[in-house]
């Protein structure tokens, strides 16, 4: 049966802006950037871990109607789309300070939990992202 998760997907409203954020600010790396004409297949991954990729997909025609794409865009900007991401980090507070200095919008400051320290942020479009420093 299944033995790994290789690709996940979230919707972004602009793929260039998504690159600036996910690579330029969060420090992920581009795993694939393929112009297929009808669509740009753009995936990013944690450095050194290309085995698990996140597809940064722009909603739009012809995959979905313009009307549906607009509904998806509105849900993303309301923070109501699923597809959120949780990363792990060795040092939650240090990562938080680094990203804060880069202008990342946080929804929650680093907080101690039973399972470790984590905090929450948003991407430029409204998607939820978290990162956790698990308890050792």
């Amino acid at each position, binding site marked *: 049966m299944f033995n790994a998760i290789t690709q996940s997907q979230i919707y972004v409203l602009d793929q260039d802006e998504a690159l600036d954020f996910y690579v330029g600010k969060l420090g992920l790396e581009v795993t694939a950037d393929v112009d297929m004409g009808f669509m740009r297949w753009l995936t990013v991954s944690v450095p050194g871990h290309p085995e698990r990729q996140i597809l940064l997909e722009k909603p739009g025609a012809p995959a979905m109607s313009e009307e549906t794409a607009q509904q998806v*865009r*509105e849900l993303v900007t309301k923070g109501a789309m699923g597809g959120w991401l949780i990363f792990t980090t060795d040092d939650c507070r240090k990562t938080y300070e680094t990203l804060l200095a880069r202008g990342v919008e946080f*929804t929650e400051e680093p907080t101690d939990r039973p399972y470790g320290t984590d905090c929450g942020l948003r991407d430029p479009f409204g998607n939820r992202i*978290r990162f956790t420093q698990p308890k050792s």
Partner: protein
Amino acid sequence: MSRAMEETNRRMLRARDAMDRAYAQPLDVPALARIAHVSEAHFTRTFRATFGETPHRYLQRRRVERAMFLLRETDRSVTDVCFEVGFGSPGTFSRTFRDIVGRSPRTYRKEAVSARVPTCFTMAWTRPSS
């Protein structure tokens, strides 16, 4: 028009995130309107159109959700919890809590059980509905 809607949604979400982040502070409409870069007159109406409830109600639910967490996971007194989450008086806290949760803070504490799942998930899903 649609791009304008997206921009409005994002601004309202920024204000809502500020409430999520700083729920215990006295967040008033002028402060939130500034975060959203809209006029005060516009803010409450637009927030409600975007998320289906007023900013005031959202903030109350947010505070009550945090109170539920503290009642469930800690031994802090009900009065401590009341001030910790940003309510100004125990009377208002108990009334609002009961109004939203359907039980008093004390009854809730007796009946609640904690769950071992990521806290962000519990926070979103145990947030009482309007």
